[in-house]
């Protein structure tokens, strides 16, 4: 009987359990989690602030998930991996593993701002605790400054805007959501947030903090009551790095989710897998990848054989009812359609769809996604039909009949 150890209590960890249990129903699974809370998906905390969900509903799996899957929970911080003796040290405990999965996720990155230590009310925006902290420290008059106009910063702004006096979001980049959207699309999304009362300072960075005042490089001065740092995240790689495993921005894994260390796997936001859209390694810190990686790791840990090499960036973001779904790479020839409410951009390369941005009308986006994933060859007519709308017309009658008339 194998001993499985999983470090981390997030989504990749849960899917790793599901993967293991698909093959091995009896092996022992130890789960080391520092947060001491049931698994929840981090992005949900902004919806919590907004009041759309609560901690109970946020639970990723039912309460009985861990007991049903015969997992032993060990609350605490994994301090050290001994890859030779195959043990993990947690506090004063040493846990032996046959297969180990590192699903340690990521941590907020806090740049070394001048005077940051003088700011009293400040937090990152990653965990339930962060959300609770924010909730405790706001009133209808609170002036909030959010550093970082990426997904985390903006979702935080969305969650808070109706509950505080003002929100200013700043970013070094000249546009919002710079890693996902280009200028045009970004300004479109920015407008929606501005209409709701969020103000922006873009292409600028804080040069120094002094208690409740931030001074920007441009000389602009912003007073605030609460500072939220959402500059970015860093993969938690140190456990594997220290144990001698190969790391880059994330823990380097192959298509089986194995690290360079024998019997050690990594999955989720801490892992650097393969991005099929750019044919290169990249940390894909998104949920579908976390799930797929964890699940793949689990299968392989339990002796199955599963490869994962069709991952690529997928982002679903939305503010105040305006949704933007994006996928893949924005290279090659672009088809664009724009109206007051919608933007549709499709990127074709080598007669294949390689990426898209949909803002507003996002219905059927998954059909585009699957074409990227399957690298489906597209004729001119198929492209035309895709440009009109995503539909199964693209499959042709025969394949479609099989899909709609058979078991898939």
């Amino acid at each position, binding site marked *: 009987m194998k001993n499985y150890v999983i470090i981390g209590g997030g989504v990749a960890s849960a899917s790793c359990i599901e993967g293991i249990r698909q093959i091995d129903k009896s092996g022992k699974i130890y789960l080391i989690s520092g947060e001491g809370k049931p698994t929840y998906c981090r992005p949900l905390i902004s919806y919590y602030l907004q009041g759309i969900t609560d901690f109970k509903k946020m639970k990723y799996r039912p309460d009985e998930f861990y007991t049903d899957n015969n997992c032993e929970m060990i609350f605490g911080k994994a301090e050290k991996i001994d890859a030779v003796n195959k043990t993990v040290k947690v506090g004063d405990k040493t846990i032996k593993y046959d297969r180990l999965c590192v699903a340690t996720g990521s941590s907020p990155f806090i740049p070394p701002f001048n005077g940051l230590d003088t700011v009293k009310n400040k937090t990152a925006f990653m965990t339930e605790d962060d959300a609770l902290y924010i909730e405790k420290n706001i009133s209808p008059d609170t002036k909030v400054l959010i550093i970082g106009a990426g997904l985390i910063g903006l979702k935080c702004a969305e969650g808070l805007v109706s509950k505080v006096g003002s929100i200013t979001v700043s970013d070094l980049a000249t546009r919002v959501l710079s890693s996902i959207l280009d200028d045009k699309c970004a300004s479109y999304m920015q407008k929606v947030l501005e209409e709701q009362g969020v103000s922006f300072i873009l292409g600028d960075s804080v040069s120094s903090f002094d208690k409740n005042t931030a001074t920007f490089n441009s000389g602009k001065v912003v007073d605030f009551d609460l500072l939220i740092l959402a500059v970015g995240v860093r993969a938690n790689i140190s456990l594997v790095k220290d144990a001698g495993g190969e790391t880059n921005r994330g823990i380097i894994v192959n298509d089986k989710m194995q690290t360079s260390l024998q019997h050690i796997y990594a999955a989720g936001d801490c892992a650097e897998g393969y991005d099929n859209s750019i044919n290169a390694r990249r940390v894909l810190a998104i949920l579908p990848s976390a799930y797929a990686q964890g699940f793949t790791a689990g299968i392989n840990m339990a002796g199955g054989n599963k490869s994962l090499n069709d991952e690529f960036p997928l982002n679903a973001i939305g503010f105040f009812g305006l*949704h933007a779904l994006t996928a893949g790479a924005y290279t090659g020839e672009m088809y664009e359609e724009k109206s007051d409410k919608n933007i549709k951009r499709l990127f074709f390369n080598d007669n294949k769809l390689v990426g898209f941005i949909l803002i507003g009308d996002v219905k059927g986006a*998954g059909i585009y996604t699957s074409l990227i994933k399957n690298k489906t060859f597209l004729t001119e007519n198929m492209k035309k039909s895709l440009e009109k709308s995503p539909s199964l017309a693209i499959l042709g009658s025969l394949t479609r009949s099989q899909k709609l008339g058979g078991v898939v």
Partner: protein
Amino acid sequence: MKKIYVNEKWCLGCHLCEYNCAFANSGETDMVKALKDKEISPRIHVEEDGKITYAVSCRHCEDPVCVKSCISGALSKKDGVVTIDKNKCVGCFTCVLVCPYGAVIPTDKHAAIKCELCLKNACGYPACVKGCPNKAIVYEER
């Protein structure tokens, strides 16, 4: 287990399935009251490929990518049926982004919707199947 299957050979493109679906999931007992002057959000939709038409709804995949991509755990598969817990759903629409059939439908409320075979509503049997005038949509074991 029984599922909804579509035979495009018999689809007339009448779109009745969409309206029957919207009605079945409206919670109303009168179709006029449920649908009149409303924009409908059915969980099944009719697509066209030239002159061919066919209805598309959730395939309840063996390996449902929507469930695996759901950030809130709102989507789950039990007894072969993929269902969505609208209380848990926050409306991030990752499921819309990944469903290869376009069968998870975004709504303007904070939740996505999808075909749940009418098992949760008052209809109890897929309304699209019941109302299809030409047996283009069937509910059976395959």
